[in-house]
């Protein structure tokens, strides 16, 4: 796996072109991300979330790290473990809670649920269930930049370790490789696809080794290290926008909960949970910040700030109304005016 160039906190940040504020921002985004999903669990148990409930525990560092490496003009197609992307791009947490509960304040206004979040104003496409169908869509976004001659714009398209077995992955990555499109492929390798372990999904050492079949590079990075993820993705982005073609950046983590709320993940060896719990991305970033000068008090302030923030946000979400039933089957087709609204 790629490791960070420097282990000294301060020089490491400097090497990455970041300052401490950036690292604190990442830390905060990770805390917000986890906080949202932890509260989601409670809401689910309270019966306030209909349907099912998915989280990305263990993947907060990777999600935030990737997103931090994107630029405002980029488009991203994150998936079910990537709440951190939405948060880092600026989605207000109350809108996530509202989405969970099917309220009008959610990005899909109650029309879609749980992690199916998109807000084109933040550059986020809005995943469908079918995996990894958003990947070719990301390739199309990259194609649009290329045709328009937009030189510093990049698309980010995700796939899980499991979903990389699907045809969409192949066709999308291949087309991007052939045309050297400005897209970075992120592979969330959390070692499981629902109950299916990696060795029943792919036959290479790393799932991102699929890259070799497309004549492109892959980079395997410890997904619990947000800065390492940032570094790898920033480099891949740089390469992509300079005509070097796509890279697959694989972020290795462990899915720290079941596939969804109903799944106790008893098929995952206990020891694995222990090992990976010790590498918790949030704790890791916290320690990095402490090593680079953050005091325990400052940390406490950040954490309690996030907590307070989420309490407010949740209240705001609960105040968001249920959708108007009479709108249920409206808005199936767009009208021409909507095309002229300034897009992202």
């Amino acid at each position, binding site marked *: 796996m790629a490791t960070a160039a420097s282990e000294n906190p301060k020089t490491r940040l400097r090497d990455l072109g970041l300052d401490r504020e950036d690292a604190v921002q990442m830390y905060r985004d990770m805390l917000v991300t986890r906080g949202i999903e932890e509260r989601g669990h409670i809401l689910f148990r309270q019966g306030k979330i*209909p*349907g*099912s409930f998915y989280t990305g525990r263990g993947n907060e560092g990777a999600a935030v790290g990737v997103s931090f490496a994107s630029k405002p003009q980029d488009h991203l197609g994150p998936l079910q473990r990537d709440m951190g992307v939405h948060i880092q791009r600026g989605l207000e947490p109350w809108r996530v809670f509202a989405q969970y509960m*099917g*309220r009008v304040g959610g990005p*899909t206004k*109650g*029309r*879609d*649920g*749980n992690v*199916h979040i998109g807000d084109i104003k933040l550059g986020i496409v809005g995943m*469908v*269930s*079918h*995996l990894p169908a958003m990947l070719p869509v990301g390739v199309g976004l990259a194609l649009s930049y290329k045709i328009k001659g937009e030189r510093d714009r990049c698309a980010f398209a995700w796939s899980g370790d*499991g*979903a990389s*077995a*699907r*045809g969409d992955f192949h066709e999308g990555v291949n087309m991007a490789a052939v045309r050297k499109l400005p897209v970075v492929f992120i592979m969330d390798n959390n070692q499981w*696809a*629902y*109950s*299916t372990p990696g060795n*029943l*999904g*792919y036959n290479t050492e790393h799932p991102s080794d699929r890259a070799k079949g497309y004549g492109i590079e892959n980079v395997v990075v410890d997904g619990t290290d947000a800065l390492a993820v940032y570094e790898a993705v920033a480099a891949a982005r740089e390469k992509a926008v300079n005509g070097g073609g796509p890279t697959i950046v694989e972020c290795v983590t462990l899915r720290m909960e079941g596939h969804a709320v109903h799944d106790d993940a008893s*098929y995952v060896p206990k020891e694995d949970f222990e090992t990976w719990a010790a590498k918790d991305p949030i704790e890791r970033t916290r320690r990095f910040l402490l090593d680079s000068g953050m005091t325990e008090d400052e940390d406490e302030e950040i954490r309690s700030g996030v907590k307070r923030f989420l309490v407010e946000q949740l209240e705001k979400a609960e105040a968001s109304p*249920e*959708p108007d*039933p*009479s*709108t*249920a*089957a*409206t808005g*199936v087709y767009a009208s021409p005016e909507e095309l002229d609204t300034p897009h992202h």
Partner: protein
Amino acid sequence: MAVMTYLQAISEGLRDEMRRDERVFILGEDVGQYGGAFKVTAGLQEEFGEWRVLDTPLSETAIVGAATGAALGGMRPVAEMQFADFVSCAWDHLTTVSAKQYYRMGTPIPMVVRLPCGGGFSGGPFHSQMYDGYFAHVPGLKVVLPATPEDAKGMMIEAIRDPNPVLFFEHKNLYRRIKGEVPEGNYSTPFGKARVAREGADITIIAWSAMVHTATDAAEQLAKEGIDVEVLDMRTISPLDFDAIATSVTKTSKCIVLYEDTRTGGFGAEISARIMEELFETLDGPVKRVATLDSPIPFSPVLEKVVLPQVEDVITAVRELSAY
């Protein structure tokens, strides 16, 4: 007879047939040790081993394509889609290869695709769809949709023995909600034979899958108003038992087609058009359709209820038609 859930009946059908015929095997995502997303195949890998209950990569096309190949190789594959919605990813293989191979090449393709389908529990646009109307439009495929535990078992066994690709729609909302008596042993329920779920004299409701229960619930309430509704459970829509429709509609002369698939272009349209063509003179009023509105299935319970057909919608339609 044992009382069991719809889900248990499907499992039992699978297990029985796998015991009887070693050519039968299951393939799909998470069907093995995990027992499938809905636990329909729970325990089967233990009994039949890793190869006869095969965990595949996340690859709907390969699952269906491999099932077609294995059928050609003399096996009796039962492929699971984790949700019926994901069959869109195998659409090409089912319609291009599985459906047409016998017509073209004369080689039967005995395979089953299990499709946990339907809405009513905030599954949202991608975990709630019915797909029956699409497939019933494809020559070469059979489309079967049991509504009761007894049929669920018998039709699963029939599906496995059928020499054609059979799309077996299991309604998720029936899995644990619907219980009933299920005969012991290895019986099969023939395709193309509808079942009168409730006898009645005034109006026929034609339904299948979960909508049979919606129809009978409505019928019970309407009985109190003095409207005597006959509910026909089609069980399979390809093949279609049009004789049963003719018998019932000739008796009642009024008819509603109730289906959970999207209204426009759904299979209820076909049934209505057939009635038009063949039973026009027996009708004392237009055939009405009650179906899912023409939109994706929304996540919010408030919205979903509007979009999917409810008992009240059926009651309203019956009252209107009754007054015609």
